[in-house]
């Protein structure tokens, strides 16, 4: 009971706009419990999002929140972390937000290794606009904008993140809340870009792709002996067509964007003093 109270302190009091039965409630719950476990001060907690059902999440959390525009949560989060590295920065968004309109940002935030945690809520549908296919729609091909079936193949978000060089890649499931909470804690602890794909069912517009019974039947935890520094094996697991693997695919260390900036500052200072007088010297 005490646990629950602590996590409630991270709720803003704004009532979620999600439909009854939406998988996102589970994610919100896992998220605030993770914050409570980590005892994160709310003043340093920053949630950035794009547009879509999942992107509404920052309103419901007591934190600094930035609900922005469609697809742009990641570069905004990159800017926030750059200007204030002390903040714990999370980006949240959906499969359409992150892989369709905003799909061009993921490879770059991953390769920059920005020290943020990105939760990609994958429900394989556009929910906020009421039922159009998304880049991850597979088993539910007939949607409002694909009455005669889908034109393209589905994207596998975790596999993409691995290929893009994210230094932490994991997959969770909204129904397995404890497991998801642990992934979020690990993601926040990880120094670098943490990508967490969270499978969650849309109760209104696509109950097929992320059907809870289907996922429960097909899921398999990543074996404990998996080496998270082995990206090829991680990709094999993430891309598995037979089983839906949950857990940490990749975890490795390399300098973050913030580290690189520090290095650049150090090198630049070796090239000249940091004051206006010195900078103007070159124009004299």
């Amino acid at each position: 009971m005490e646990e629950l109270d602590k996590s409630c302190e991270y709720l803003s009091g704004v009532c979620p706009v999600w439909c009854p039965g939406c998988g996102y409630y589970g994610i919100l719950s896992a998220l605030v419990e993770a914050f409570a476990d980590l005892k994160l001060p709310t003043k340093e907690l920053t949630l950035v999002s794009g547009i879509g059902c999942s992107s509404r999440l920052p309103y419901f959390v007591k934190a600094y929140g930035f609900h922005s525009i469609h697809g742009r949560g990641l570069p905004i989060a990159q800017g926030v972390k750059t200007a204030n590295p002390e903040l714990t920065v999370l980006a949240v968004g959906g499969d359409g937000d992150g892989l369709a309109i905003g799909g061009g940002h993921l490879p770059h935030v991953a390769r920059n290794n920005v020290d943020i945690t990105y939760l990609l809520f994958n429900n394989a549908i556009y929910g906020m606009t009421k039922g159009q296919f998304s880049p991850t729609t597979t088993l539910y091909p007939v949607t409002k904008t694909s009455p005669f079936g889908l034109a393209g193949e589905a994207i596998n978000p975790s596999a993409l993140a691995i290929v893009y060089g994210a230094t932490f890649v994991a997959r969770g499931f909204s129904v397995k809340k404890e497991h998801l909470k642990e992934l979020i804690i690990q993601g926040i602890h990880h120094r670098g870009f943490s990508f967490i794909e969270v499978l969650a069912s849309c109760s209104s517009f696509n109950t097929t792709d992320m059907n809870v019974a289907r996922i429960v039947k097909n899921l398999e935890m990543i074996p404990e002996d998996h080496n998270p520094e082995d990206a090829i094996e991680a990709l094999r697991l993430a891309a598995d067509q037979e089983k839906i693997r949950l857990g940490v695919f990749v975890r490795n260390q390399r300098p973050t964007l913030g580290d690189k900036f520090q290095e650049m500052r150090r090198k630049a200072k070796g090239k000249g003093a940091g004051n206006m007088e010195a900078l103007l010297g070159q124009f004299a």
Partner: protein
Amino acid sequence: MQSDLVLRVAGESGEGVITIGETLCKIAAREGIHIVTFRTFPAEIKGGSCMIQVRLSERRIPYHGEGVDFLVCLNQDAVDENLPDLKEHGVLLCEAECDLPEKNPGWTAYKAPFDRIATREIGSRISKNIVVLGALSHLLSLPKETIEKFISEKFARKGKTVLDHNLDALQRGFDFARSHLAKKDSYRLPKGSGRKRLLMTGNEAIAIGATAAGMRYFFGYPITPASEIMEWLAAHLPKMGGVVLQTEDEISAICSVAGASWAGGKSMTSTSGPGLSLMSETIGLLSMAEIPAVIVDSQRGGPSTGMPTKTEQSDLLLALYGSHGDATRVVMAPTSVSDSLRVTALAFAVAEKYQLPVIMLVDQALSARLETVDRETVERLPQGSRSCASPADGAPFVRYQLGASAVSPAALPGTRGGEHMVTGMEHDERGNFACDEETHTAMTVKRFRKLAAIESDPLVAEFCTRLGDENSEVGIVTWGSSAGPVEEALAIAKGLGISAQAIIPRILNPLPHQELKTFFGKVKRVIVPELNFVGQLATLLRSTYRIPTIGLTKVKGVPLAPSEIVEKIVEAESTLNARSTRAYGRAG
């Protein structure tokens, strides 16, 4: 002796044409001479014709000069392309093998085998431009020691062999000119005050102005003709503890700026028209969420890819209106390199103080031109900062308070008790989304009240200037770098006995209504010179003040010439006497 010299060096890109011009500028700036330049860039990466025009003067000058006094041509193409711009009694210095037209209106022509001296005598073809400099130092009485010192500085780190080659080239060029080119003209370097001036391009001035204003977070995407802003900052901002990140596109750049600025850092991006088009949606977000940001657009020929290396002022309407909805933003436009320093600092002051995006428009010609700047300009830049709250414990923070002031104090992430939402959605005072009738109206009014407050802020008072005869009935309104040729044109017209006056606002949104209304109350003709096809400022003035305007537009990829403006002034003046007219200024 003349107080003013317009010198042009023309040749093929890669021949060191620009180095000749820039070296002359460096030397002259150290002598305290005023300089304004203009240079063209070939569209090709390598090769293609290019030129740099340098105007040197004892007094402050607003324009790079119309008509060339002293033309230096490194090949036949350069002669063919540039000779028509040489003044009747001008001087031509060219490669020995060049053919000149038989008809000579009065030029003095000097020929020198620059190529042969460089390849045969020195054994280094690339030192040709330094041979030219040597010849120029004789013909224009340049201080040779200063050139030697400058060359030593420039080539010292390339090793002794390279340095010796260049010093040899300078001497041989000088010697050739002294023994073979008897001085037949009277042109020489104007006298300097001896007070050293800084010499920089418009892009460098913007980068310095931003750095001096405390900007420490720059995100950008390479684009001609704005890239040099990012390049300079990449080399120098980290020395000041700042960062520069080249992002994957302009959308990422402006969004990263939005994030960094929300977190409290003074942030900026720079781009050209195509990039500003991409940034439009985020400009609306910055407006809605009330986040400061400075966006520099160095305009080039458009639309679409247009003419990347040519100048134009055709993004005004995009800057004013780009982005959907009633999106507030401030639009500024400096007129010169020196002005770019001040207006960049003003852009940050206004963006931070009023928590909104500021778009600053320059153009290719201004971005690329070298100009002398007084050091004091850097020491007297406008200042402004963001108002931040000290939230009370317990009560939820009210980010967008509706009250007496349109500006509500922010709480930067990390501030205890300041947790709140910012959003691109319409929102209530706490930042939570709200779509009710009252809130949308009240918040829209709040955002627009900021523009009204800016208009009357003493901070911006000095950023609208009047030129010419205040009693004249012929008026000119112009913006950005077209102010230079306008100032020059007023002086020429005055010399012809025709009076005219001009008003040049640096802030184009919100317009300085009081100043403009007073101006329109006095003049009976309004000429609006600008570098675009439809007359974008004229459109704005007509719709805002309901006045007729006389358009003077040009889309040739080069700046307006003062003579083109003088022609319009003469034309407008002649219609004044034709029939009685009433003054403008009734409307608005």
